């Protein structure tokens, strides 16, 4: 085997999926703290912005006086910009966290259904390990798993690491 003096990181490509949830940033930090030795830089960080709920936007204009739903293009544009700003902010935050740990990072922003896009990106990039948080929104409950992480667990061919926030502290024990 390789010389025991300097173990080489074996995971050439590790991808972490982040979204606006604290859970995913916790997952990123956990990975940087605990798996830094195993990860060969750069770490891939992906965030997926969901498609704009244009259905809602159309519905909002049903009350227009002419009876014709008019979707203001400015509204759509401002929603898109806001979405992009949000994604960029997430990426910036991830960059910051990685910089704190001294790990080089490569980021990507995709648009679409988060769970599918993450799995697709993981396959395209042929990652060795995909890391996801356990929930995207709502309080962390020990017995449930968010839909994105659940989907990734089942559909990604690569090893998947699901990082939960530690549920022991402050939650009821169901032992």
């Amino acid at each position, binding site marked *: 085997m390789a010389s025991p003096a300097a173990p080489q*990181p074996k995971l050439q490509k590790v991808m972490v999926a982040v979204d606006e949830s604290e859970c995913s940033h916790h997952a990123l930090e956990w990975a940087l703290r605990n798996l830094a030795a195993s990860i060969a830089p750069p770490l891939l960080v992906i965030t997926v912005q969901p498609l704009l709920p244009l259905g809602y936007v159309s519905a909002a204009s049903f009350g227009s006086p002419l009876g014709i739903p008019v979707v203001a293009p400015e509204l759509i544009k401002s929603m898109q910009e806001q979405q992009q700003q949000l994604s960029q902010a997430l990426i910036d935050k991830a960059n910051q966290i990685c910089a704190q740990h001294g790990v080089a990072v490569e980021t990507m922003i995709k648009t679409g259904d988060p769970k599918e896009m993450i799995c697709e990106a993981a396959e395209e990039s042929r990652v060795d*390990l995909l890391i996801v948080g356990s929930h995207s929104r709502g309080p962390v409950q020990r017995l449930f*798993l968010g839909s994105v992480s659940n989907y990734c667990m*089942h559909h990604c061919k690569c*090893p*998947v690491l699901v990082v939960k926030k*530690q*549920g022991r502290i402050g939650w009821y024990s169901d032992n």
Partner: protein
Amino acid sequence: MEGKSATASGEAGAVVAGMKVVVAVDASEESLNALTWALDSVIAPRSGAGVSVVVVHAQPGPDHFVYPVAAHGIAITYSPTSAIESMRKAQEEISRKVSATGAIVEGDAKEAICQAVEEMHADLLILGSRGLGKIKRAFLGSVSDYLVHHACCPVLVVKPTKAHDK
């Protein structure tokens, strides 16, 4: 026969910074592959920084009829020797690379592993999944599925890779 696991393995030095990794194995080849993957990718690179490994063998329930490990040619429903056999194989794998302790848990595999992980205050649980073929791709093995939902620590599931196309 392996005894119950000790919380401190033979690792020298900083237990404070050390990470406790529990790898759950059973008699299947996928879980041994998962163990090998874990050793190569996660544990070995970290061995400088301190990592303790516990290999937990879960004795599958009596509904498993065919054991690849059983050499008798007869379908054996419940064989304690297979546990020892797979532990031995696991230990062989590991002892080449890093020191570890082993444990055998009995009873309902998923609950037993879950409880063991909690008692040991594991930092990470690694396990294989049976990967029940293309049609049943929607389902992971029920043990891995349960553990991902219920374990108190991060869980890493290693899927069987049919073709290593690296």
